[in-house]
C-alpha cells in the first residue's frame, strides 16, 4: 500500500520548492492549485526559501540566479527575461536606448524598489508591479509620473500591504498607491529640503528611506513609515556631518547602508546595524576605491557580499577577510553602438516568491481549513 502524507507535511515539502516548480504543480489537482494560491502558503514559502536573484536592466532585462554562487565563482550567468515580460507590460519591443545615467533624467527602465519578490518598475512613465518568478505583471493605474523627487516601494507587514510612494519637487505633496486598495491617496506635508534631484528610496522595517539636504544644506536621512504614513528623520553617522557631498542609501542583510558618492573616491561605506540607533553605525572598509556604490545582497552560501560599483562593475567582497574581486556577467551583450552606454547596468536583488501583483482573490474557506488545520502563520 502506498504511503500517503498528511496535508501539513505536503505543505511543508511544497513550501521548499522553487517558484517554477510550484507554477507547474498548480496543475496537479484543484486542492494543490488552491493551496499554492493561498496567501498563507505564499508567506510560508517566502519565509522558507529566500532564493536570491538579480534583476539586471541594460538595453534588455536579465535575471541571475545566486542560489549556488560562492566567492570562488569567476562569473555570473545572466538569462534574458523573455518576451513574456514585454507582452505583459504591453510594450512591443525594448528597442530604446538607455539614457546615460543622470540623476535628473531617469533611464528608460527604472527599478524603484524590490520587496518580497515584487519589483516596482517605471518604464517610460508607466508604472508596473512585476514578479519575475511567476512572470505576473500589473500596470498601476493613473500613475502621475511628473515632477517626482523622491519615490519608493515596499511592503508594510502589519497591514499586509504593498505601497508605492512619490513626493513631488515642491516637497508638499505625497502620493501613495496601495496595492490592497488598488488606489491612490494624497497627503499634504511641509517638508523643507533643497533640491538634490531624483532618488529611489530604500525599504527597511516598513519604512522608505532617502537622503535629503535640509535648508542649511545639511544631509539628513528621511524615513517614511508606510503604515502610519508619517515622516521622521533617522540618526546619521558622524561622517555625514563632517563631510559635505552626496550620499546614497542601500540595504544589506536587512540593514540600512550609507555611502558617499560623487567626484571623490572612497573605500568605505556605513551600515546601521541596529535600526534607529546612532551608535550602531559601523564602518565597512573594502579594498578598492569607488565613486558610487550600491550594496546588493550577501550570499547565502558564504560570508560574501555582492556590490555594484561605479554603476557597472559587480564585485564580491568579504570585509572580514579583506577579500575582494571583480566579477563578470556572462550573457549580456556589450553595447557597440554607443560608447557612453556601454558601462551602464541597473542591478537589483529580488527573492523568488509567489507574491502576486494582483490584489483581489477569493478563496473557498473549506480548502484553507483542509491544508491548514492548525493556524501556524
Amino acid at each position: 500500500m502506498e504511503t500517503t502524507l498528511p496535508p501539513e507535511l505536503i505543505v511543508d515539502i511544497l513550501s521548499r520548492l522553487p517558484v517554477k516548480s510550484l507554477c507547474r504543480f498548480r496543475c496537479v489537482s484543484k486542492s494543490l492549485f488552491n493551496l499554492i494560491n493561498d496567501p498563507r502558503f505564499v508567506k510560508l514559502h517566502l519565509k522558507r526559501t529566500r532564493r536570491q536573484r538579480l534583476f539586471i536592466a541594460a538595453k534588455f532585462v536579465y535575471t541571475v540566479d545566486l542560489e549556488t554562487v560562492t566567492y570562488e565563482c569567476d562569473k555570473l550567468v545572466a538569462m534574458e527575461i523573455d518576451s513574456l515580460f514585454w507582452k505583459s507590460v504591453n510594450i512591443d519591443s525594448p528597442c530604446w536606448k538607455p539614457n546615460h545615467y543622470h540623476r535628473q533624467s531617469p533611464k528608460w527602465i527604472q527599478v524603484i524598489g524590490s520587496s518580497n519578490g515584487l519589483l516596482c518598475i517605471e518604464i517610460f512613465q508607466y508604472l508596473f508591479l512585476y514578479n519575475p518568478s511567476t512572470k505576473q505583471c500589473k500596470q498601476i493605474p493613473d500613475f502621475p509620473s511628473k515632477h517626482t523627487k523622491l519615490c519608493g516601494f515596499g511592503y508594510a507587514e502589519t497591514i499586509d500591504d504593498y505601497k508605492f510612494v512619490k513626493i513631488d519637487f515642491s516637497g508638499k505633496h505625497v502620493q501613495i498607491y496601495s496595492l490592497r486598495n488598488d488606489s491612490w491617496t494624497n497627503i499634504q506635508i511641509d517638508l523643507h529640503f533643497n533640491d538634490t534631484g531624483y532618488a529611489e528610496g530604500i525599504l527597511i522595517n516598513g519604512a522608505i528611506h532617502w537622503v535629503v539636504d535640509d535648508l542649511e544644506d545639511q544631509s539628513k536621512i528621511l524615513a517614511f513609515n508606510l503604515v502610519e504614513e508619517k515622516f521622521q528623520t533617522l540618526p546619521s553617522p558622524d561622517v555625514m556631518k563632517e563631510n559635505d557631498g552626496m550620499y546614497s542609501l542601500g540595504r544589506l542583510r536587512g540593514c540600512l547602508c550609507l555611502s558617499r558618492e560623487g567626484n571623490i573616491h572612497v573605500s568605505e561605506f556605513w551600515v546601521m546595524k541596529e535600526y534607529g540607533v546612532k551608535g550602531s553605525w559601523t564602518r565597512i572598509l573594502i579594498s578598492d576605491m569607488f565613486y558610487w556604490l550600491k550594496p546588493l545582497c550577501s550570499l547565502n552560501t558564504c560570508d560574501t557580499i555582492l556590490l555594484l560599483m561605479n554603476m557597472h562593475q559587480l564585485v564580491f567582497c568579504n570585509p572580514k577577510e579583506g577579500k575582494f574581486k571583480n566579477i563578470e556577467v556572462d550573457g549580456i551583450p556589450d553595447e557597440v553602438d554607443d560608447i557612453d552606454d556601454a558601462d551602464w547596468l541597473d542591478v537589483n536583488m529580488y527573492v523568488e516568491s509567489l507574491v502576486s501583483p494582483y490584489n483581489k482573490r477569493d478563496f473557498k474557506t473549506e480548502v484553507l481549513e483542509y491544508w491548514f488545520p492548525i493556524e501556524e502563520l
Partner: protein
Amino acid sequence: MSSSIASSSSSSSSSSKKEKKISLKTSDGEVFEVEEPVAMQLEIVRSFFADNEDVTEQTVMPLPNVSTAAMHGILEYCRAHEEFRRRMPEAAPEEEVRAFEAGYVDRKSNEELKEMILAANYLNISKLLDFLTGVAAKRIENKSVEYVRAFFGVENDFTPEEEANLRREYEWAFEGVDED
C-alpha cells in the same frame, strides 16, 4: 580504532560500560534497545520519560505508528548524529555530515522516504523531519505533474480542458522537466 586511547582513561570507560538503554517497541512488535542519548533525540521518547515518574529502565515504550523498517532508518540517522556530536561537541564536522546524509538518502526509495517522514513527524525529531522533507522537495522539484500526483497520491480532479488551460497559462514552467 582511535578510541582505544580514550577508553583507557578511567572515567570514560566506566560511564560507557554503564550506558543506559531504552526499549522501544515498533508497530510490528519488534523491541529495539537504544542507547539513551540516541533515544532522547526522539522528542516523543524524551517527553514520555520526563513526564512519567513511574517508568523504570525496564519500561518498554510502545511506538504504534512506527514500522520496524522505518525505525532502522531513524536510528541509523540518530546514531550517526550522536557520534558526530560526541566526537565534536562544539561544531559538527559539516562536510562529513553532508557526505553521510547524501549517502543515507540515496539508498531510500520514495516509499521508504515517505514512511520515514511519517515516522520522524510522529516521533517529533525536528532536525530529521526538516532534513527529510528537504530531500523530498529536491526529489520532486524538477519532475512532471504526473510524477508529483503519484508521489503524493493525489487524484487529478481537473477536467481535460481546465488542465490544458492551466498548462497553457504556465507554459514556461513545463520547460526543462526531468524524465520520471
